């Protein structure tokens, strides 16, 4: 029984580290901050979740703590990436756009600055 758990745990940790590596590669290769956040958020979320779940399988007494950690990661990781992306846009770093029609491909640019800032206060 414990051998099976160890195999599952080791496999999950391997998968997690592969996804974390791909996330790091994505952060290196992508052209601008938004695409880097895309690669970073998704890969690190599943990578960290899978890694922590693997640790939970390897030592079953930590399983419940691992599940709590997974829930916290699932909530906090997207929130932090959203905050970073929004801050970058308000600071005026617009996303890189390959299409010619830059205005149409950036819907957030037409939102007035006052409206964006107002959301911060409320």
């Amino acid at each position, binding site marked *: 029984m414990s051998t099976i758990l160890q195999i599952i745990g080791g496999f999950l940790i391997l998968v997690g580290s592969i996804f974390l590596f791909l*996330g790091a590669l994505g952060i290196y290769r992508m052209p601008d901050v*938004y695409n880097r956040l895309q690669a970073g958020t998704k890969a690190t979320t599943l990578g960290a979740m899978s890694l922590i779940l693997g640790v939970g399988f390897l030592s079953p007494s930590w399983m419940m*703590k691992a599940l709590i950690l997974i829930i916290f990661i699932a909530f906090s990781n*997207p929130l932090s990436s959203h905050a970073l*992306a929004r801050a970058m846009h308000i600071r005026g770093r617009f996303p890189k756009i*390959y*299409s010619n029609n830059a205005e149409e*491909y950036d819907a957030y640019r037409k939102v007035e600055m006052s409206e*964006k800032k107002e959301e911060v206060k409320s």
Partner: protein
Amino acid sequence: MQELSFANKLSRFITSWFFLMLVWIAFTSTYATQELLTGAFVSGIIAMFSVPFFTCCDLSLFHPVKIAYMIWFLIVFIKALILSNFDVAKRVISPALPINPGIVEFKTQLKTNFGKMVLANSITLTPGTLTIDVIDDVFYIHWIDVQTTHPEEAFTHIAESFEKILLKIF
């Protein structure tokens, strides 16, 4: 903030208490009586003070139909999370870097703040999309491979599968 009736407050209190107690049991990982009693006491105090702030949920959350939809949402979400990781992996590994980024907008029908937050987080973790901002009911989404800039078509591409489940819950 609107005044709450006593029944409303009690229902929120019980909900927060229940979730705090779950976290406590998960962290201590024992069922010893004194641990449970301490947990119930501490959770009770925290839930009491947090009634005005935890506005997301009350006892109606435990309706069986809603719980069934929550489990269904979890399945859809985990599937989307795994798919999105393979999507990102594919884009990162391929030498040509096949991306066509842009920001699109669409409207949601969700009313509660908590529902919007769950939808925004789910969108961030699904293939190729990242929530940048939510102003009232308009979502601004950074899309790594823009297929349409039309708000309604973008909505069917990105959010429809999540929203129709979330509308049942919140």
